[in-house]
């Protein structure tokens, strides 16, 4: 049995961005030595997310546009106040809510050393409050090759 945890650094360059990390997750799986098992991908940040959808720019844009429609920046949020533990104000409630709505993790089976996923499924790191350098946890679990 192998249990391996990798921390991927993902750097966003925009306020909001869908970043395809499928290849990087596949690389972690291939290097892990796991033949059959699971891979779990999780963002470490509550103003970002993890999504699986078809990997085409129009959908990336639709997701960001309609999340913004559901959670507009200027809505009335209780989070817009001074957070003494952070030494600053919290005014990114919409980013947190998008993270809650879209989710923060995904899981895929591994078979014969490769991720098993639909041909159109793409793993996205979702930046909702960038640009920032972020961390994704990728944990691979399964029987050894």
């Amino acid at each position, binding site marked *: 049995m192998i249990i391996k945890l990798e921390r991927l650094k993902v*750097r966003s*360059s925009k306020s909001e961005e869908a970043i395809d990390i499928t290849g990087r997750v596949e690389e972690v799986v291939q290097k892990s030595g796991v033949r059959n098992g699971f891979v779990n991908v999780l963002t470490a940040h509550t103003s970002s997310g993890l999504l699986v959808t078809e990997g085409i720019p129009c959908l990336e844009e639709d997701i960001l546009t309609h999340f913004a429609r559901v959670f507009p920046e200027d809505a009335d*949020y209780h989070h817009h106040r001074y*957070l003494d533990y952070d030494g*600053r104000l919290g005014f990114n409630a919409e980013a947190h809510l998008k993270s809650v709505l879209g989710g923060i993790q995904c899981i895929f089976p591994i078979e014969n050393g490769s991720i098993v996923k639909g041909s159109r499924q793409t793993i996205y790191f979702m930046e909702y409050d960038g*640009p*920032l*350098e972020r961390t994704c946890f990728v944990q691979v679990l399964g029987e050894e090759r």
Partner: protein
Amino acid sequence: MIDFHTHPVLIQELADKYPDYRRMAREVFQIGNNFQPLEVFLLQMDVAGIECAVLLPIDCARVRGLAVSSNEQVAELCARSPRFIGFASVDPLKEGAAQELERAAKSLGLKGLKLDPALQDFPPDHPKAFSVYEAAAALKMPLVIHTGMSWAPGTALEPGHPLKLEKAVRQFPGLNFVFAHFAWPWVWEAVAMALKYPNVYLDTSCLYYDSPREFFQFVFARQIPTTLLERSLRGKLVFGSNYPRVEIKNMVRALRSLSLTEGCLKKILLGNAKMLLGITDDH
């Protein structure tokens, strides 16, 4: 566009290099956000449309144990990117403060002075502070001075009152004072000084509750009329974000949400800062 008020306190490269830097950020500056590569600072500027940022250290080592970034660290960052404009900070109550400022200007190439009477625990009308004001005036360095409320625990409100600076403002007409944070909550006193004294400027880095947009709508549309900025203070305001206490993009957006003309915004976001920094169009 120029951001006249940023603090380089969450730079990953400095955290890796200087043993006390992390403790400074957490215990002295008291910010809980993650350290980020320097490139992220530049990306934050990019998404906000900011070309250059003024980096402000605070020499509060005498009272807080550590300075909030050193002059040398600021100079180091300026050497890494031409988009940074470094200011110096000295402790007015320390022997040789004026000489230290001169060294920072001449040896490190720093362009202005930053003081925070509350965090540095000195009265802004103290005679020793006047020696520093005099040195800054002689060096033609603008002074960004904290006014208004300070969140920092253990600090008093009184040193942040803008009228505490009136004597200095009158005594050093050749020194340009930039009152940080719009001196909130003493907004009208700050406005009166900026209207009355040619050498008093105000920066927009005020945010004490609600979102940046909500706070700006309150201060710059209800607490004082927006027309006051548009008509009478357009030449006396500089944009400042106070990054990383707030992301630059949010403060730019808040400023743009006010009913200001493009001409007025251009002065606040660029022209007035260039004038204070002595930047001419051919640079």
